[in-house]
């Protein structure tokens, strides 16, 4: 393996780390946002009664 391949592997690993890392961040963010939304809607409905 040439020295250049080390940089190529580093570049592709970094790309996937960033893309998958951001994907995980989005999924967690979505779960949190949905949970907060459901809680807020429940409080709204409780306030209406």
């Amino acid at each position, binding site marked *: 393996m040439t020295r250049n391949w080390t940089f190529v592997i580093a*570049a592709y690993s970094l790309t996937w780390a960033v*893309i998958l890392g*951001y994907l995980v961040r*989005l999924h967690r963010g*979505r779960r949190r*946002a949905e949970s907060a939304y459901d809680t807020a809607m429940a*409080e*709204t409905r409780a306030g209406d009664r």
Partner: protein
Amino acid sequence: MVVPRPGAWRWFGVFAFAFLIFTQTLAILTSPPDRDMGDLEKILYVHVPAAWITFLSFFVVLAFSARYLWKGREKDDLLAAAAAEVGATFNGLTLLLGMIWGRPAWGVWWTWDARLTSTLVLFLIFVGYLALREFVDDAQRRAQWSAVVGALGAINVPIVYMSVRWWRTLHQIQSNPNTMDPAYVLGLRANAFAFLFIMIYFIHQRYVIASLQRATEHAAEAVALGGQQE
């Protein structure tokens, strides 16, 4: 406020990631080593699409920011913010990939070259844009201020793009099918589309989160006022 639901977007995400795996494999396996750079040219298939997607995301910010300033629709503000976060992520990735390429090609990780410096400035502008959104509580003021910053920030994109022609730089001029060997064109085009699909999926996902957060804020305001949720 209408909160978007996943629906077909989940399958679009699966497709985008599967397509990226396919295009990267295709590019790595089919492109011959470059005469001067050897296998280092394979970094082209991630660095260049990441840069293009950065530019495209910031044009999306410009379009929705301008539309927000014109029409004042909340949806445009949220879409601009979603595109800004995705663009900043790809902008950071572009800079890091450029450093990985620069070390073996130029002998340095970083140099204050016009292209690199202008790309870093672009990144910092949009990090500032995202920080601004975190610090301003009033939704309308946040939207107005960030629309102005987003539109002004996106104006830097043509400067970054043209920097390799306007100033003397270490960075090569823009790559396109006319300046490249045909052996590399298919891999680059395919990966550019794969990154485009990932960008669209990410922007949509980020927009859904922002919509949910805004709807939560509206609901909380309704409870505080003792009124009805729309």
